[in-house]
């Protein structure tokens, strides 16, 4: 460093050291979490757990593994992203490339912000009320004799989860689109291309890394959310497919659990009682998040190979 800090005012030197300390503290915390989870996870996780179903019922102290929660986490994330990705990219495109009339654009912007700011437990309760309406019973089922739907299923949990990922995807895509200079769009128009063609062949490929980043963030949020799972997925340890004429849709309309609800259930706060399995599940959850991020980064690589922006 060229400047000698000894000439700084005491106040500035203190500030400088505080910044250093904050950075180091963050590293320490992150390392502590990672190492603790790694040690606990490795010592508690048996490979067989990945392929064993958990005990049927709440109590997990006996035999049983993590197969259903793992499948549940992946299923909910897939449904959530499958809804949020096209919706989020579409909203971002509309906001940046069209956004007329103006008042509607402001309304949509505010809507996205409100969703982003809503705690997931509130979304969950709202979802339960909404999807208990009997005309939406196709997403779960209608108990005999009841006049409301059950309101809990993978489809319902996934649908509400998509709202968690949506603002992140909209935000990232929008940021990417805003960063594309106007003359790039004009260059495409000046070659006789329509707006639709420009969006498809120039804008979307350009913002692919942004979309991937938003999707990765959204997946992380979905896979880590517990409130919506506990309320809207039933949090039954095993997948409980709905046995009906819909066949393959059975599991989607049935209940189940995810790794987060499994961890919650087996933590001291829950009723599962198998603390060691909670550690194992948390460890698997972290691994899945890391792998998903790598996969998304790889998918986004296509645009990066073309030099990005």
């Amino acid at each position, binding site marked *: 460093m060229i400047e000698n800090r000894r000439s700084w005012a005491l106040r500035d030197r203190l500030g400088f050291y505080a910044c250093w300390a904050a950075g180091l503290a963050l590293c320490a915390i992150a390392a502590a979490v990672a190492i603790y989870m790694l040690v606990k996870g490795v010592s508690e996780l048996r490979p067989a757990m990945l392929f064993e179903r958990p005990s049927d019922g709440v109590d997990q102290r006996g035999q049983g593994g993590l197969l259903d929660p793992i499948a549940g986490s992946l299923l909910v994330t897939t449904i959530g992203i499958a809804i949020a990705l096209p919706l989020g990219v579409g909203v971002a495109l509309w906001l940046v490339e069209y956004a007329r009339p103006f008042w509607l654009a402001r309304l949509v912007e505010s809507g996205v912000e409100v969703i982003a700011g809503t705690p997931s437990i509130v979304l969950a309760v709202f979802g339960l009320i909404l999807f208990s309406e009997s005309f939406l019973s196709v997403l779960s089922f209608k108990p005999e004799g009841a006049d409301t739907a059950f309101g809990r299923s993978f489809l319902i949990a996934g649908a509400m989860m998509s709202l968690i990922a949506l603002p992140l995807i909209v935000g990232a895509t929008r940021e990417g689109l805003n960063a594309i200079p106007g003359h790039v769009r004009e260059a495409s128009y000046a070659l006789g291309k329509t707006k639709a*063609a420009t969006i498809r062949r120039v804008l979307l*490929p350009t913002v692919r890394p942004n979309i991937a980043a938003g999707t990765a963030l959204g997946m992380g949020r979905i896979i880590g959310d517990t409130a919506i799972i506990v309320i809207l997925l039933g949090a039954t340890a095993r997948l409980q497919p709905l046995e009906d004429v819909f066949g393959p849709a059975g599991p989607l309309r049935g209940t189940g659990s995810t790794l987060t609800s499994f961890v919650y259930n087996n933590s001291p706060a829950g009723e599962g009682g198998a603390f060691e399995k909670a550690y194992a599940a948390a460890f698997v959850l972290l691994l899945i998040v890391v792998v998903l991020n790598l996969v998304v980064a790889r998918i986004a690589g296509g645009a990066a190979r073309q030099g990005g922006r």
Partner: protein
Amino acid sequence: MSTEQQHETLVPPPPPVRRIVIDDPPTIVPAPRGGATAAGGTAPTASFQRTERADAAGVERMRTHALSIAYGGKPAVKAVDLPVRQGEVLALIGPSGCGKTTLLRSLNRLTELTATASREGRITLDGGDVDELEVTELRRRVSMVFQQPNPFPMSIFDNVAYALREQGSKRPRKAELMEPVEDALRRAGLWDEVGTTLDHPALRLSGGQQQRLCIARALAARPEVLLMDEPCSALDPKSTARIEELILQLRDEVAVVIVTHNLQQAYRIADHVAFMWLGELEEYGPVEQIFGAAHSQRTLDYVSGAFG
């Protein structure tokens, strides 16, 4: 040059002035040493000599008829009549904000992308009103190169093939487009540099190569008119010289309209020059007239560097 001397006494310290010696035939004085000039300050490409053309004015391809354009009611271009001829380079010069770029962009109706822009008067392409053409068709025939090199984030090949392919599609396939793509790259003088690396990302090229790629991209669809909005202002002198050379080679097959702040550039490459002043076409004529014997005092002052 009394106005110039006046100007210098009015504004101390005297601005660096680019002088065009007025005699016959016109010659150009080397660029001023030190200090940016009103004309943009791009370093001169001294080795480059103006090539005189033997034949006179070519076939008229485009013409504006009393064209006026306003942004939100504020006029930017006022009642301009201007012909664009095949086989020649037309340079639009004038101070900043005088409507050059607006006039250029109106020729392929890019001004319509600005919500507040309104237009009066007609623009014709080969005698037909451009409003009667599908706008995508018009822009294929009247293409444009921009100030900033702006290749798309795709391969070199795909950039050039972009205009040749169907809207939003990757068809026709690569093999069928190889010939026109190579042809466009050759015409843009880029083939020797990128012929073996067509699948490389276009954004890895140097700035000058990117701009020539943009020219190739614009040429691929065989336009009749090529609009260029200060195509060299973001480039170094060497790349500028390449592009000027290229423009001179292109003028036989395509009518070129170029906006430039660089008077020397206009002098080097233009056959006709239009001097714009506050939205009006102050003077239009052969390059020798504008730089050598301008009819209007304002043109005279501008090209001799008295203001800008």
